[in-house]
């Protein structure tokens, strides 16, 4: 046994459809969806006008007026979820040695929302290329550098150890948690607040996915727009949110009698070096990442009892990862329940990988597998057990979660119940 193996002792979630971890769990096990017509701005004229938004009241959740003024929405979501995770862990922040606390935060698009809002003012609605500095807000540079998001979480959690923002597009969330686990294993910190945040529901982000027809144009039926693995799927639905974990070395967590949700036993990332947005149908590099994650966990396909799919709902993704599961897990892939919570909470880019890992840890803890909502007409090319429509009770000791992102990044992580851990 590796004494410094990273375990999850606290979870915080700010996802569409409810505030906090328990509301998130209730939503994703209900099969209900949080996708709706965009309300954060007027989406008239955009191709896709659907998104999964957080009903987020920063003041009610404890942020001060000063913090709200300073922080981009992505930072606000991150700080609230980080505080929930620390509180859930039972750690007393004032008793921790700040030097031994680290942060590994993921984000794909940083503080885009404030960056765009400020640009609109300084350029007079895009009239001037030479933007007017006289009207700039003092925190504009903070929004330009996404590392500010990690700074805010570090300040909120009193972290003075290694702090980093990981930005590998839509695998950022999983990669940040993987990075945090490495920091624990290497001994550079005893507590790492790891997770991810993104708040991309702003005109420029919606427009950039419009331009490549990646998002669903199902504007007339927003509740059913995110349809992973369904024959009638027509693109992903943008989301927003954050999730955070408290990671500790297993021996320390045991010593203090912490509640341990799961151990992070395997993590790997590979790149397809093929195309910035395109995926080959064979799923080769994702399969390679899955194989390595299993190898690191000293686990086999038999030890995987649930797969949390990337399941974005684009035609190419769903086929790509279905092939990757078969390639890496063989016939066992047909026996394992696979689901995509993006059907309910949308695709929040870099943050969703962490939100999905939160679901995975809770699946292990609670013995319920969330369904894939809106899956009424299976695509014959996606022929695994995607747990359509309703949640399923089953004992789950080991979970595989995967993420796939622009840039060609493919990541895989294994979470296991402590009793199931080998090696």
């Amino acid at each position, binding site marked *: 046994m590796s004494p410094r193996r990273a375990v999850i002792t606290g979870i915080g979630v700010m996802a569409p459809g409810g505030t906090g971890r328990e509301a998130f769990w209730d939503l994703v096990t209900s099969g209900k969806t949080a996708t709706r017509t965009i309300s954060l701005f007027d989406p008239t004229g955009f*191709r896709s006008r659907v998104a999964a938004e957080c009903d987020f009241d920063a003041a009610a959740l404890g942020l001060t007026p000063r913090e709200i003024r300073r922080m981009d929405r992505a930072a606000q979501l991150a700080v609230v979820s980080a505080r929930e995770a620390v509180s859930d862990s039972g750690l007393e922040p004032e008793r921790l040695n*700040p*030097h031994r606390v680290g942060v590994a935060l993921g984000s*794909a698009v*940083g503080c885009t929302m404030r*960056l765009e809002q400020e*640009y609109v003012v300084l*350029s007079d*609605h*895009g*009239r001037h*290329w*030479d*933007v*007017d*500095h006289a009207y*700039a807000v003092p925190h*504009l*540079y*903070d929004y330009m*550098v*996404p*590392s*500010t998001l*990690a*700074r805010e979480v*570090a*300040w909120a959690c009193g972290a*003075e150890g*290694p*702090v*980093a*923002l*990981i*930005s*590998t*597009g839509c695998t*950022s969330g999983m*990669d940040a948690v993987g990075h945090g686990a490495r920091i624990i294993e290497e001994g*550079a910190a005893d507590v790492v607040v790891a997770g991810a945040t993104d708040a991309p529901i702003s*005109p*420029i982000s919606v*427009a*950039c*996915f*419009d331009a490549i027809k*990646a998002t669903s144009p199902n504007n007339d039926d927003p509740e059913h727009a995110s349809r992973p693995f369904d024959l009638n799927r027509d693109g992903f639905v943008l989301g927003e949110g954050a999730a955070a974990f408290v990671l500790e070395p297993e021996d320390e967590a045991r010593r203090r009698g912490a509640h341990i949700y799961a151990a992070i036993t395997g993590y790997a*990332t*590979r*790149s*397809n070096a*093929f*195309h*910035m*947005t395109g995926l080959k149908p064979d799923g080769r590099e994702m399969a*390679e990442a899955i194989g390595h994650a299993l190898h690191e966990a000293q686990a086999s396909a038999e030890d995987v009892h649930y797969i949390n799919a990337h399941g974005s709902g684009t035609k190419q993704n769903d086929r790509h990862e279905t092939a990757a599961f078969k390639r890496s897990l063989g016939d066992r892939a047909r026996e394992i329940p696979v689901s995509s919570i993006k059907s309910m909470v949308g695709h929040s880019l870099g943050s969703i990988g962490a939100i999905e890992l939160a679901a995975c840890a809770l699946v292990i803890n609670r013995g319920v597998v969330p369904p894939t909502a809106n899956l009424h007409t299976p695509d014959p090319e996606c022929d695994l057990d995607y747990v359509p429509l309703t949640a399923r009770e089953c004992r789950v000791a080991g979970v595989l979660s995967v993420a796939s992102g*622009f*840039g*060609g*990044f493919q990541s895989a992580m294994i979470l296991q119940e402590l009793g199931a851990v080998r090696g």
Partner: protein
Amino acid sequence: MRARSVVTGIGVVAPNGADLEDYWAATLSGRSGIAPMTRPAASSYPLRLAGEVPAFAAEDHVPGRIAVQTDRWTHLGLAASAMALADADADPAAFPEYDMAVVTASSSGGTEFGQREIQKLWSRGPRSVGAYQSIAWFYAASTGQTSIRYGMRGPCRVLATEQTGGIEALAEARRILRGGARLVLAGGTDASLCPYGIVAQFTNGQISRATVPEQAYLPFDRRADGYVPGEGGAMMVLEDLDEARRRGVTDVYGEIVGYGATFDPPPDSRRPPNLRRAIQVAFDDAGLTAGDIDVVFADAHGTPSADRLEAETLVSLFGERSVPVTAPKTMTGRLYAGGAALDVATALLSLRDQTIPPTVGIHRPAFASALDLVVDQARPATLRTALVVARGHGGFNAALIVRLILD
């Protein structure tokens, strides 16, 4: 046995030299790349000077199909990566695909590309946003494009910690080599000298208002009033020492032997800053002490309070005037994601040639009794081990120690 991470190739694109040897010659001779800004028309901005890479044309380095879908920051990164691979005499086709990886630092992504598309959106409507915005602006663009260009399918990464990013990228590369990879391209570049980028940078309150290049970025000088931003950076090829030798590499720049990273408490805290501890962690990681360090490449922020903190930190670790300290970035400006990467590259060249490049423009040293600052002229010295110090906006501290391979 644990991999020994050595640098076998370096690619540089800097304001005072658009390739490795041009940059190094300029740096040793004290030739600065800081000049009146040409791009964009800067007359309306309080910032008049910058470290632009003047001699860089994307079409000389980046295939046309890729150039249109990427920002200048990525162009600079692709160019530096190509030069690093050539310098290492490493042909990616000769390495197993999953044993190669790319790690870049990104400070602000494709700022100019992003500004252009946001402007189109707001002036002409959502349908005018182009297909490349989704892949050009985001922070992972350079890593993704580099991985695709060379078929590098191993564990790739992007780290965003502002000016410490280059050190974080190299530390991550070392981690990846220890995990079994054979070649990692790592470093960082930056290019955010478009109007929105400049205006945003100016709001941090740390940019020099000087209008004459010679007076603009004067760390550890009594006239210090901030820094000058620049563009460019460095990419490096990292390999395991034994593996590199096995493929016939004879010239190794040096080994990454120590790394440390810490974060500062919030500004309103009564707790002390953590720069010293980052350096101490790097010493411990390397199994070295202050006495083993032959030269320090300082962060050299150029604002009086940050300079004082760094000077006091170095004195507390090394004693007064007991190690040469230099800041060749006075000739490039601060390059954000490219800054620490270029400093590490410069430190390795310094070890190679047993010469410390100078800090330029310092005529009224503020800490002459505390720091042995190498000014004006390069100084020959016996060098085995160099410490590179970096700080990133918001409270990031990092230190990296590189050491010559002697045997």
